[in-house]
C-alpha cells in the first residue's frame, strides 16, 4: 500500500509541474499572471500605500484637478484623490468577482456533479430547472435579484452568485460526463467505494481542468458585471469607492475631467484582461492535444 501511495503522489506532482512548465512557456499567460499578481498585491497593501480616508474625503478646493505629482490620477468632483479611490475600490471588486465565482462553483459544482454522475432522473430534473433559469439573460437575473433585495455589496454578491450557478452546473456536468464513462471509475465502483467518495476523489480531480479555466475567466466577467450594477446605481452606494460607481459619477464631468472616466475603466479592463490572459494560457497548458 505504501508503495502505491508514494507512486501516485509523485505522479500527481509531476503532472502539476508539467502544467506549470507549459504555462511558463506561454509568455502572454505569464504577462497576465504578472499583472494579476501586481493587482492583488496592490489591493492587499492598499492601506499601506494610501489611507482609506483619502479615498472617501477630499477638500473642495482640490475639485477636479487634472493628474499631477500630488494626485497621480487627478481628483474628482468632491476633491477626492482618484488614485486612492481606485486602489481601495479594487478590494470590493476583487471580493465580488472571486467570491461570486467561488460560491457559484461550489453550488453549481454540487448540482453539476450530481447531475453528471447519477444521470437518469436526477440529471433531467436538475438540468430542466437549470435550462429554464439560463433562459433569463444573466444581467436581467442579477438586476431582478438586486431589485428585490435592495442595493449594496452583499446583495450584489448574492445576486451574482445565484446567477452564476446555472452556468457552472452546465460546465461541471459536461466536465464530469467526460470522466464518468472511464474504466477507473468503473473499477472504483466495483471495489465498493461509496459514491460521494468516488465523486470527490476520482471524478472531480480528473475533471477539474476545464473548471479552473472557466473560473479564471469568469472572475473577470464578474468584476465587469459587478461594476455594471454599481454603474446603474444598484450596487455599492456612494461615498464608498467602487469602479462602476466612480464611472457613474464621472458621467457629468466627461468634458471637463476626462481622466475621471478613463482611470476607473482602465482598472476594470486591466484586471479583466489579466484574468483572461491567464485563463487562455491555462487552457492551452491543460489541453493534452497541444502537448509537445
Amino acid at each position, binding site marked *: 500500500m505504501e508503495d502505491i501511495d508514494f507512486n501516485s503522489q509523485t505522479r500527481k506532482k509531476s503532472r502539476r509541474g508539467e502544467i506549470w512548465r507549459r504555462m511558463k512557456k506561454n509568455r502572454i499567460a505569464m504577462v497576465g499572471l504578472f499583472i494579476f499578481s501586481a493587482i492583488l498585491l496592490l489591493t492587499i497593501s492598499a492601506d499601506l500605500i494610501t489611507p482609506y480616508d483619502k479615498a472617501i474625503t477630499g477638500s473642495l478646493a482640490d475639485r477636479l484637478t487634472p493628474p499631477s505629482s500630488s494626485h497621480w490620477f487627478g481628483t474628482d468632483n468632491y476633491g477626492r484623490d482618484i488614485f486612492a479611490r481606485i486602489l481601495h475600490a479594487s478590494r470590493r471588486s476583487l471580493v465580488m468577482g472571486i467570491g461570486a465565482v467561488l460560491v457559484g462553483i461550489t453550488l453549481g459544482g454540487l448540482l453539476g456533479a450530481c447531475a453528471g454522475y447519477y444521470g437518469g432522473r436526477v440529471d433531467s430534473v436538475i438540468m430542466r430547472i437549470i435550462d429554464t433559469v439560463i433562459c433569463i439573460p444573466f444581467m*436581467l437575473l442579477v438586476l*431582478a435579484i438586486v431589485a428585490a433585495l*435592495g442595493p449594496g455589496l452583499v446583495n450584489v454578491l448574492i445576486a451574482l452568485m445565484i446567477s452564476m450557478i446555472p452556468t457552472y452546473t452546465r460546465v461541471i456536468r459536461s466536465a464530469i460526463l467526460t470522466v464518468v464513462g472511464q474504466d477507473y471509475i468503473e473499477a472504483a465502483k466495483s471495489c465498493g467505494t461509496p459514491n460521494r467518495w468516488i465523486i470527490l476523489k476520482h471524478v472531480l480531480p480528473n475533471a477539474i481542468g476545464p473548471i479552473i479555466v472557466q473560473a479564471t475567466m469568469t472572475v473577470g466577467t464578474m468584476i465587469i458585471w459587478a461594476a455594471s450594477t454599481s*454603474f446603474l446605481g444598484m450596487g455599492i452606494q456612494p461615498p464608498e469607492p467602487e469602479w462602476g460607481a466612480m464611472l457613474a459619477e464621472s458621467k457629468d464631468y466627461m468634458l471637463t475631467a476626462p481622466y475621471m472616466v478613463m482611470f476607473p475603466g482602465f482598472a476594470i479592463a486591466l484586471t479583466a484582461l489579466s484574468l483572461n490572459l491567464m485563463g487562455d494560457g491555462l487552457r492551452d497548458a491543460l489541453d493534452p492535444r497541444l502537448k509537445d
Partner: protein
Amino acid sequence: MLVPMLLAIIFIVYGIMSLTPGDPAQLILGTRASPEAIAGLRHEMGFDKPFVVRYGEYVAKAARGDFGNSWRTGRPVFQVIAGRFPTTIKLSLAAVVLAVLVGVPLGVLAAVKQYSIFDVIGTTIAMFMASIPGFWFGLMAILFFSLKLRLLPSNGADSLKHYILPAVTLAIPVAASLLRLTRTTMLETIRQDYIRTARAKGQTEGKVIFRHALKNALLPVVTATGMEFGGLLGGVVTIETVFSINGVGMLIIDAIRMKDIPQVTGCAIFLAASFMILMLFVDILYAYIDPRIKASYQKMN
C-alpha cells in the same frame, strides 16, 4: 416546450420580485398612510392571498396581455413596454448583425491564415475587446466621437445616426467572442479528413474553405450567436442608460429605482421571453442547416 418554459420563467421572475422586503401597499401609499388604508389596499390588490394564488392570477391575466398597472404612473405595464420595445429590438438586432458581419469573416480569416499577421492582430484585439466593460467603452465613445469630434449624437434614438454609437458599443464584445469561436471551430474543421479529401480531389482552395469547411464550422457559431443575443439583451440595459435611449432597458432601471415592482416584473418577463423565442428560431434554423438533424426528423416520419 415554449409554454411550460414561459410559465416557469414567469414563476421565477415573479417569485424573485415578491421577495422584496416591506409591504407593497405601504410602498405605494407612503409612510404616512393609515393602517386601515394600507389594509384596504392590500386586500384590493390581493397581497393578502397566498403566493401560489397570486401567481396563478398573474399568469391568467398575463395570457390576456394584462401585466398589471404601474404602481407609479398607473398606466398598463404592457402598454408602456410595447411602446418602448421596438427601440430595444432595433438596437439589439443592429448590434447582432454588425457583430456577425465583423466577427465571423475575421474569425475565418484568422483560422485560414493561422499564425499570420491577421491571426495575431485579430485575436489580440478580440482579447482586449472581451476585457473592456461595454458601458465604459460607450462612455469613451461619447467622449471621443460626440464631445471632442462632434461627429455623432451622444443620446437619444431619433435617427439612424443615433443608433451608430450604441449599436457599435453593444456589438463589440459579441464580435470579439464570435471571432474567437469561429476561429476555433474553423481550425478544428480544416484538420478533418474530408477537407483533405476535398483538397486531394484538386478542388480550388476557395471552394474547399467556403463550400466544405465553412458550412460545417458555422454550426456552433449559429448557436453561439443565439446565446450571445441573451447577453446582449442584458447589456442593452446598461448601454441604453449610457446613451439615454428610451428602450425597455432604461425602463427597467427606472422601475427598479422607483420600486415599481409590476413594471420590473413585466420588463424582465418580456426580455426573457423574447430571448426564448429567439432561441426557438435558432433551434428551427439549426434543424434546417444541419443535415444530421434533418435526417433524424425524416427517419422519425
